[in-house]
């Protein structure tokens, strides 16, 4: 999952990124002004946007309205020092999905981000099941049958993304877009390497294979029509 944080206090933005990235599911892009933030939000496909309202350039609410007008459905969490009930109501009415006042609690912010992502993916249950594979998105642990599987952050992120979109063919480009932040050099063979590594941990020891390669299209995580390699 890739998150955009638009916040003009550079150090606060860095702290937020630091906090969010303690969860293996997320990578974070930062933007420090409205103009740049709008550009990123319109051109990149983010899974969530954390938006400060008082930002230089375009103010947060205008940015949000522009985003919704353009048909963008990205969940938006407003994070701002303006937190009177009127501010909150206005923020939500402008089309944001959640609203959090500063100073905030990092744990709460992370929980809200996770909840928003779950809801936007249509999977409100933090426990995702694919056949006998269980992915706990709250504790970031993976279990298949009775066996716990330990995954490095990037592999977990890949698996979680596929699990959120299970039964769907996910292209390599899409995976690259959602698993890495803006600063990464994107080589598509990286995905193949991680899929391979993931398969060795998730599928190889088990008779039923869950990760399927759709030639020329991408990958799919699915419990249906399990086949042996």
């Amino acid at each position, binding site marked *: 999952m890739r998150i955009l944080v638009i916040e*003009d*206090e550079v*150090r*606060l933005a*860095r*702290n*937020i990124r*630091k*906090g969010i*990235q*303690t969860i293996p599911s997320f990578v974070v892009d930062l933007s420090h*002004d409205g103009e740049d933030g709008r550009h990123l939000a319109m051109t990149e496909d983010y899974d969530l946007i954390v938006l400060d309202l*008082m*930002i*230089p*350039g375009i103010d947060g609410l205008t940015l949000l309205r522009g985003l919704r007008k353009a048909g963008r459905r990205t969940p938006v969490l407003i994070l701002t*020092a303006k937190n009177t009930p009127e501010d909150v109501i206005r923020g939500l009415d402008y089309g944001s999905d959640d609203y959090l006042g*500063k*100073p*905030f*609690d*990092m*744990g709460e912010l992370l929980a809200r981000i996770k909840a928003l992502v779950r809801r936007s993916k249509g999977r409100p249950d933090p426990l995702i099941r694919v056949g006998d594979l269980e992915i706990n998105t709250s504790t970031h642990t993976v279990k298949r049958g009775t066996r716990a599987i330990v995954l490095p952050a990037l592999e977990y992120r890949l698996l979680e993304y596929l699990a959120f979109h299970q039964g769907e063919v996910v292209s390599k480009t899409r995976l690259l877009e959602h698993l890495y932040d803006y600063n990464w050099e994107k080589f598509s063979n990286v995905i193949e390497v991680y899929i391979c590594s993931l398969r060795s941990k998730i599928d190889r020891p088990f008779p039923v294979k869950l990760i399927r390669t759709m030639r020329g299209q991408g990958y799919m995580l699915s419990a249906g029509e399990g086949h042996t390699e």
Partner: protein
Amino acid sequence: MKSEKKGRMRLSIRLALLVFLGQALILGTFAATVYFYCRKVFYDSLDFALEANAESLATLVEKEDVGEHPELEFADEVMRRFSRKKRPDLFAVIINDGQLLEKSKSLEKIPPFVHHSDNKKRFQNFRNRGRHYRGVVLSLSRKMEKNPDRTFQVRVFFASSTHPLGEELEDIAEFIAWFYSVGLLISFLLAGLISWRGLAPLRRLALETGKIRAESLDRRLSSRQLPRDLVPLAGAVNNLLERLETAFERERQFSSDAAHELRTPVTTLKSGIQAALLAPPDSRADRRVLRDLLVDVERLEGLCDSLLLMARETANGNTPELAVTEWIEEIRNTMEGLEALAEENGSRIVGKFPDQIPEGLFMKTDASCTRRIAMNLIHNAIAHCGKGTTVRVEVDSGESGGHMIVRDDGPGIDPEDVYHLFQRFFRADQSRARTTGGFGLGLAISRTLARIHEGEIQYSPEPPHGSRFTWHCVGSIRHP
């Protein structure tokens, strides 16, 4: 002591007393007038009777002809009234040569005024055997019986006891006294009632004013039902409320602004600490977070310092004093301390300090205020001007104080922003990008610090495009 006590007397009582005294005075005058009028009427009627009696007595004096002796022709019943035991009437008849013709037995002695009276008619009070009498002396001429062309002089004295009259008057006085005391009692009650009723609007006003609390300062006293002379009072109270409300509002606004503005650094601090705790231990990253935290803590500290300094200066009423040499020295030191920053920014500072300083001049400020103001004005100039600019600091002093001018040839201030320049939390660059640092409190605090001690900070554009801040600092010469 006495006057203080009087000053504390309740207004209603004072008012009642005044009304009462006024009424008592009027009543008293009225009573006295009635009494004296009655007395006069009584005496007039007595005098009238006396005169009639004297005249009728005179008709009894007869003289046949020249050389004859005058005689008094008395009837017995006339004599009776002169011989009754209790306060008899008195009389005496004297003929022209002063010879006593006849007098009543009860008359102890003819009062001297009878002989000395030159007038035709004279009334006089006197005492006879210890009793009060009033008598009349009539001098008149009568015709002789047998020779009507000739007359002779008779002086008739007639007196009656004033005792019945005195008793009557006493009765009247008693009646008037009763009337007066009842009147006083009524007027006393009336005065109380009048002052109580009269002060009712004042009490209502007090009640209404008493209801106003700090939370309801927007309430105003209605002057619609007030008597006209209480309207200025209500107006003054409303005026006071207005000012109070403004002050309260400003205070509240400031607190809320400060709290609001404090949130950002506090949020950064908190998130930084929490992120550091969430992240796996990595000594380098942690050090960086800690460094950032330190910067924020310093900002918080600076803000708190400023707020505290301002609060302190506002709270303590005493007047600080700073010798002009020290004042200039503080400014010079502050300026020199900022030279490094200016160099970093690519600008330079030029100072101009006076050669001659008035002797014994003391500035109405203190060292920390001076430092804060100089620091703020010079720092602002450096921060808002770009490379190659020059910030000029000019200090001068005269007998009534001194001024510090900070001017630059930077981009200046947008005319639209000038109005907000000294408002709290205003930043000329709306972006809030904190590249220049500060909270937008600096100028507001500086101006407050200057104004607390009767000084002022003013802005004016500096041709061709820079800005110019002038701090006027009040001072006075003190001869040792």
